[in-house]
């Protein structure tokens, strides 16, 4: 919202010596965020009003007009580019010798071979950018030749972030901002200039009949009929101010309602009084249409609140008037509406219609119902000066079925001081609150604070709200920071946090993985390339892009996409993501945290090495996190995702629980993604970290160095290629001999010296005794008996 400093000066004395930027800074710190400050400098001098006498076309130049002007006793001929000019109307004119910053010094010149003695000024030249190239019309009260006071054209404009005042209906007009400025500067706020209520309450006048069907949606509706208005320009000072705050001057009546909206924050609507006899406020019929004054026919739902007259819709309540009852050039009587509408109803209707206006934006903030009458008083005050024939055609009619309750908040000054952590005495509190319109009474050590109606609609209702008013006016920068004094308390660690930090520390701060963060929704295009159809899962109603509605149930599609991206820039990389995956189901298990790993390397035939390396990384992490070894189970081939290899896939098993899968990407998948990936090897793993929360890290005793030396020997076993490693282990572990201390796995080999259909597994065996050093004969005996055991298991020794 834009705020004109000239305008503020109507209500509070702002010293000329005060830098407006400094004032803006203070507003930001105490009230609402200022987004920018602009100095409007027109450099105007020598401007006068001029009456248009005649308008003629310029041959061959359709955009130009030959205009004769009456300058009051003398005339001038100019060539003008103003798009709209009307005979007899007064315009702002710069005769030769006058100047503005935008046009420079005006001189008599020739345009299109015609003499041009001055310039009909465009709006932009005097700080009304909304009017751009349009001429500025003067009100009929001005005389041709009358000079224009340039002082009102220069101004400062403060831009306030609308988001910072969504909770402050009072700040949507200059008077509310002026109240804050007055408090900041310690100056009095001048009374709001209005006509006396009595003047509008002539009992001899009839009342405008007002019926309100839904008092919740329309707590108050005030109206007044007036005659003696006509189409004419608003006073220049008003046009200028409207222009400075971004509103385009149109016509005195419209400008008056806009001015009051920007002044008090109260939207008003002027109906053509000859077309409206009574006011009925009620809900629309579902499916009806209504043409708003922008000429658009709108389909209504039964939630839309309408203003009707004799059951004929005349306005979308609080949003926009209707085309038919709009004030037109010949209008002499108006019915002025100033109403209060309930905020969420307006919001809903605006959302349903896709229409937001300056008026609806304000009603959405829960406006003060007391402003309906006040704004009518203000209107009459301003209009009387412009329309000498203005007369009341009704008395002020006011339906107020849903009265705003008074709010009084009891505040404990000690609690205020304690919560601020800063000493403020009762007098300071009272002064601050009084300055911004609150009523304060001291009662038995407590402050009884009466909330003014413009803050009482939803903004302020509890002591914390009053505390904020005090604290922000004391100034947060005056509060001295102090660390809290606390009661020590022990919190049980969050297992999710611990598990994830451990995983990232192991993989990304030791094992060489680079962590990535990827989107939590699938990209259908990418899934197509993978040839993957996910099972049904949670789906977004409003995805960020088409085809990105389903939430991921695996980290792998994203990680594969990241791999495809990174392969251009590296010959090998390892990726890691810890993220959420989703599924439909009961709350407790509809999302879980997964660990996804990728190990990729350029070059064919690297599958087995990468697979083994990845498993080794997982085992290293498992040792740190779970304090023990993992097992692998041959995974079933059913229902596998396309990134799962038909044979080279294992379930990762920790303490009897399957926690994840490790595999390599099959060639078919890599080809589907991109031909170039057929020359890559990619191993991957995905682990459900939530399953690890209950695992305790067992602290194992370190192995003691034997007192008597042990003998180490390697045995390579030739086994059937199909015989699983786990079975071999079980069989070896059955060998029972007091001298056998330990068997560990060394490695597997398939190659030249191994017969087809077989593979070789190598184990390292330690023989020894805690009591003595073994002799040669002990060793050969136990070795022979171990070899015999191997033979009895059906395995051959590879020599």
């Amino acid at each position, binding site marked *: 919202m834009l705020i004109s400093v000239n305008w503020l000066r109507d209500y509070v004395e702002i010293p000329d010596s005060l830098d407006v930027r400094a004032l803006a800074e203070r507003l930001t710190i105490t009230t609402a965020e200022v987004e920018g400050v602009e100095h409007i400098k027109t450099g105007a001098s020598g401007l006068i009003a001029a009456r248009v006498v005649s308008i003629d076309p310029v041959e061959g130049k359709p955009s130009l007009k030959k205009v004769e002007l009456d300058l009051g006793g003398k005339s001038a001929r100019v060539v003008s580019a103003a798009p709209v000019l009307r005979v007899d109307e007064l315009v702002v004119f710069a005769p030769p010798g006058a100047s503005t910053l935008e046009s420079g010094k005006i001189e008599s010149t020739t345009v299109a071979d015609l003499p041009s003695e001055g310039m009909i000024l465009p709006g932009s030249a005097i700080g009304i950018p909304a009017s751009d190239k349009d001429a500025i019309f003067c009100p009929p009260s001005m005389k041709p030749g009358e000079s224009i006071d340039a002082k009102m054209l220069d101004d400062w404009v403060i831009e306030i972030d609308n988001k910072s005042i969504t909770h402050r209906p009072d700040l949507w007009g200059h008077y509310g901002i002026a109240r804050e400025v007055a408090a900041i500067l310690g100056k009095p706020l001048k009374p709001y200039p209005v006509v006396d209520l009595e003047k509008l309450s002539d009992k001899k006048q009839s009342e405008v009949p007002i019926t309100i069907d839904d008092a919740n949606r329309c707590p108050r509706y005030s109206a007044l009929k007036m005659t003696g208005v006509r189409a004419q320009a608003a006073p220049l000072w008003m046009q200028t101010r409207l222009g400075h705050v971004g509103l385009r001057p149109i016509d005195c009546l419209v400008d008056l309602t806009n001015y009051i909206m920007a002044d008090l924050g109260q939207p008003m609507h002027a109906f053509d009084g000859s077309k409206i006899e009574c006011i009925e406020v009620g809900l629309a019929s579902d499916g009806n249409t209504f043409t708003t004054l922008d000429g658009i026919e709108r389909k209504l739902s039964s939630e839309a609140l309408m203003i009707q007259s004799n059951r004929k819709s005349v306005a979308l309540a609080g949003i926009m008037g209707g085309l038919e009852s709009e004030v037109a050039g010949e209008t002499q009587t108006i019915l002025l509406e100033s109403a209060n509408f309930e905020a969420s109803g307006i919001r809903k209707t605006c959302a349903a219609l896709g229409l937001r206006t300056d008026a609806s934006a304000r009603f959405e903030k829960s406006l003060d119902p007391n402003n309906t009458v006040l704004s009518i008083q203000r209107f009459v005050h301003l209009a009387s000066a412009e329309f000498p024939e203005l007369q009341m055609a009704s008395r002020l009619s006011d339906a107020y079925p849903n009265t705003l309750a008074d709010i009084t908040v009891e505040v404990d000054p000690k609690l205020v001081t304690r919560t601020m952590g800063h000493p403020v005495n009762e007098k300071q509190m009272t002064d601050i609150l009084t300055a911004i319109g609150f009523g304060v009474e001291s009662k038995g050590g407590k402050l009884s604070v009466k909330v003014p109606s413009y803050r009482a609609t939803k903004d302020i209702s509890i002591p914390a709200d009053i505390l904020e008013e005090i604290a922000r006016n004391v100034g*947060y920068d005056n509060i001295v920071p102090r660390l809290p004094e606390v009661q020590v308390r022990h919190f049980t660690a969050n297992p999710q946090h611990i598990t994830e930090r451990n995983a990232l520390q192991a993989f990304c701060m030791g094992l060489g993985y680079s962590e990535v963060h990827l989107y939590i929704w699938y990209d259908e295009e990418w899934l197509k390339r993978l040839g993957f159809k996910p099972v049904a899962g949670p*789906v977004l109603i409003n995805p960020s892009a088409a085809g990105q509605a389903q939430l991921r149930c695996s980290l792998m599609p994203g990680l594969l996409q990241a791999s495809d991206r990174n392969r251009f*820039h590296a010959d090998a990389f390892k990726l890691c993501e810890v993220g959420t995956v989703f599924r439909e189901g009961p709350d407790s298990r509809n999302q879980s945290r997964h660990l996804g790993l990728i190990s990729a390397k350029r070059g064919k035939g690297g599958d087995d090495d990468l697979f083994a390396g990845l498993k080794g990384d997982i085992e290293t992490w498992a040792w740190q996190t779970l304090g023990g070894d993992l097992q692998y189970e041959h995974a079933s081939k059913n229902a596998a995702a396309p990134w799962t290899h038909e044979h080279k896939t294992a379930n990762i098993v920790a303490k009897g629980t399957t926690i994840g899968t490790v595999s390599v990407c099959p060639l078919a998948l890599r080809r589907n993604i991109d031909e170039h990936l057929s020359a890559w090897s990619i191993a991957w793993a995905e682990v459900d970290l939530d399953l690890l929360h209950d695992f305790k890290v067992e602290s194992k005793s370190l192995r003691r160095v034997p007192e008597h030396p042990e003998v180490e020997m390697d045995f390579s076993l030739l086994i059937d290629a199909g015989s699983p490693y786990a079975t071999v282990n079980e069989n070896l572990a059955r060998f029972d001999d007091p001298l056998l201390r330990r068997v560990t796995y060394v490695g597997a080999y398939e190659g030249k010296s191994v017969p087809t259909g077989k593979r070789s597994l190598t184990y390292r065996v330690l023989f020894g005794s805690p009591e003595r050093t073994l002799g040669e004969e002990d060793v050969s005996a136990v070795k022979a008996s171990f070899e015999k055991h191997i033979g009895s298991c059906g395995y051959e020794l590879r020599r």
Partner: protein
Amino acid sequence: MDVGELQQTLSKLHQEAKADLAATKTLDELRSVRSKYLGKTGSVGSLMGTIKDYPPKQRGEVGKTLNSANKAIGELVNEHTERIGSAEVAADAATSTAFDPTLPGERSRLGSVHPVTAVQWEVEAVFERLGFTIEAGPEMETDYYNFEALNIPPMHPARDLQDTFWLKNGMLLRTQTSPVQIRAMEKFGAPLRCIVPGRCFRYETIDASHENTFHQVEGLMIDRNVSIANLIAVMKLLLNEVLQREFEIRLRPGYFPFVEPGFELDIACLICNGKGCATCKRTGWLELLPCGMVHPNVLQAGGIDPNEYGGFAFGLGLTRLAMMKFGIRDIRVVNSGDLRNLVHSDRWAGPVILDKD
């Protein structure tokens, strides 16, 4: 062999050993020469075993003769050990002249965490030192935790400020980490000190400075007598520690339904030091940290008595902080998975000799 012959033999062997030793170039050669003569089966050593073949009267003399021969060769060996040793030292010193001790070492590839994680861990460390626990919560949330319990009833205008991703199952993607405030209160009650780092989602158009997926860290402290002065002190400490420098902060009114009063905490722009530049939109300040005193309705929703306890809460944009700390100009790289943008590759590539960036 009589004693005389023995002496002759020994002196011959002495001469031979002398020549052999002189020819040695390495300690290995020296050791084999030594055992050739002095070893158990060596030419002198083996003679030691013959003492018992001499008549008892001669044995003393033979023994002396053998011993002195043995000793003499032993001394020769020592001399040559010395010679070869110093030659090797000299040779070693000579080869080392080509060695450049200033060359960089060979680096290990340890991996890298995401910039956001790196900053998150720093924030966690600061709060762990202050006795805060670290909590987590779900990314797919209910309307109740994300809005209602946080004093944002249906149709509240504040819902507009955070455009939401809605799910067909009636849930939503959390727009903030604040729902975990309620979850933590339900779990622990008061007094409570916790932070919650996590991912949040907002339905908005992505460009260089807007993302629909980003990280925040929520903070919550509930106790008796928690004040605005406490909030400012903790926020200042947090930012000073994480950004590793002192700078000005300011608190100004900000509206968030779940706090009252609510604040926006700005820091003096790190780019221009508060003078005003494009980054801070010429204001000299960067909006970084919405915070405030927990609204009584929120305490109540979390099952805590607002008459007994109060507290502060804040929400720090971790993604934003990571961008500031690591000079990331375009927010889109954060979720790109493109390692060129996420990893200090110099860390393992090797030292940078020239960098024109």
